[in-house]
């Protein structure tokens, strides 16, 4: 497929990450606690919403959020600027951890008839509890998230920014230090790849029935935008 990594060195002098990342990294390395607070204020909402999307479980999402930021604090060198923006790194880390967690919970089977939409439909209190039974058969959502985590990193970065952080392709281009064409290209490769994966898997479509009406893709409505 056309979607292999096309890593391209930025053509202009743009840095590949926002300068703020560099300052935060430096302060984290040298133990300035207020830098952790700032990172949390800036990206906590994003991290939590990503964890929640994948895990469908509020307490789990809280815990993952705490883990992600504790890791940022304890292992600051792992976040060297220049290997992706801090925003994408944290978002992807939350995503990975949530997937790992869901997988770990899998064997403890439950009702086999997974209702992919249950998570969304569930009303407030229900959702805290439904987590376990839902795991037996991976929902299309979960399969998609797994497929996303398997994409080449540059595509993951762009997708996280668009999908979860509510960034448009111009902002993505700036944040990743790539031309806008490249940002659109990565989004296209990623989304097509994911759509193909979904089709391959037969998209049992969830009991709810096959492709809903076209339309409103409206990512980033949640923690995204406010997650700055």
């Amino acid at each position: 497929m056309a979607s292999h990594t096309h890593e391209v060195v930025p053509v202009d002098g743009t840095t590949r990450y926002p300068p703020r990342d560099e300052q935060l990294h430096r302060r984290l390395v040298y133990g300035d606690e207020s830098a952790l607070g700032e990172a949390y204020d800036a990206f906590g909402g994003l991290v939590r919403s990503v964890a929640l999307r994948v895990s469908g479980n509020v307490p789990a999402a809280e815990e993952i959020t705490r883990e992600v930021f504790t890791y940022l604090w304890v292992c600051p060198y792992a976040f060297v600027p220049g290997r992706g923006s801090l925003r994408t790194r944290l978002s992807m880390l939350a995503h990975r951890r949530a997937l790992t967690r869901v997988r770990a919970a899998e064997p403890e089977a439950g009702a086999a008839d997974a209702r992919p939409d249950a998570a969304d439909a569930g009303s407030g209190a229900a959702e805290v509890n439904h987590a376990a039974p839902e795991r037996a058969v991976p929902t299309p959502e979960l399969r998609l998230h797994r497929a996303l985590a398997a994409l080449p990193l540059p595509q993951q970065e762009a997708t996280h920014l668009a999908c979860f952080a509510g960034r448009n392709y111009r902002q993505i281009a700036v944040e990743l230090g790539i031309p806008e064409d490249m940002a659109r290209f990565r989004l296209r490769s990623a989304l097509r790849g994911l759509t193909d994966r979904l089709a391959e898997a037969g998209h049992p479509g969830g009991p709810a029935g096959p492709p809903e009406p076209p339309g409103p893709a409206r990512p980033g409505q949640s923690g995204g935008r406010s997650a700055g």
Partner: protein
Amino acid sequence: MTADEGSGEHGPKGPDESGSAHGEDGGGAGAQGTPAESGAGSGPGRTAGHEAADEAGHEEVSRLLAAWALGAAMPGDDARVRAHLAGCRPCAAEAERLAATVRLLAGPAGGTAKSPARKGNAGLARGRLMASARAARPGHGPLAAHAAPYSGAVAGLEALLRELDDSPARWGTPVVHDWDVQGTLAHLIAADEVLAERLGLAPVTGARPSSAGAGAPWELRWVARTDEVVAYEHTRPTAETFEAWRTQAHGLLALPESADEQLAAAATTLMGLRLPVADHYVIRAFETWVHTRDIGRALGVTVPPPLPTHLQRMVGLAVRILDLALGPMARPVLLSVEGEAGGDWVLGSDAEPIAAELVLEAVDFCLLVGGRLEPGEIPRGHAGDAVASQRVLETAASLAWL
């Protein structure tokens, strides 16, 4: 421009728009007008006419489609995409497929709806995070400005060494001189020990002080001591060396001298330098940072420059020591250190007009003084008497006390 064009074309389609509005909104997705809304609803077979003919437009929209489906297009793109979709079945079908994926991937997350309710807990969650972070990587109590750079350097080295926990073999990576990571840390233990001992801390290493040459010059005693400690530390597990270094470093930071400026103003001579205790703390920071950088380079980890306020302190001290080393008779040179931690100083005699100006970057200057850059390789700006400038650079390099 394109937006105009788009809306122009869009005009005739008014009815279609409303027609397709039915189609949207699978789940709770509907909301403030985001692009995709009526999107692929090419609906009532829009007279496959004029727009479809536009090949270039097709190409362009097709490149844009994924971004648009993700809600990541620019506001101006929207009308153009919609207009095209209304007349292009393949694109409309593709948009539909992509949109279905996006709905699954980015549809409302499980509990987002309740976020307002959880708002009250936000502060709590933040507090809990900070507490668990602090427990996992503790900081220090209040420190005076002279001890902050050392505290920062210790935090930076400690975090770096923690990352070695997973791969014990990397402790054996050669770093500088003939030291591996453990040896470098042992060297730091020996170097910190001089100040620790002076301030009354108990020794942390079992290396016996050599009886050899109690009356010998400090350089010789110091070399002998560092050799002893390095040799001793290599006989025990790296975790113990790490712990010994930590204990001593945190011990120094827990002393009243690290929090009390008055107390730290007392001068004492260590390693041939008679300076206030406060400055000795800054020297510890300097050396700790330089070796952290050494270890980072050996391991392929980027160690950032010290924080600006810390760097400033280090530069200021290095300049004073450099000035002492040049002596009062040296031809005066204006040294400009650039960057966030910079400043201007006149070095050497104050009885003569300035012979030269030398411009260096702050981190480069520290690396020169720390013996990690040669005078020949340091980027500089220079004007005036080259001999005088050269002398400053060479003297700075010869300070290397690390």
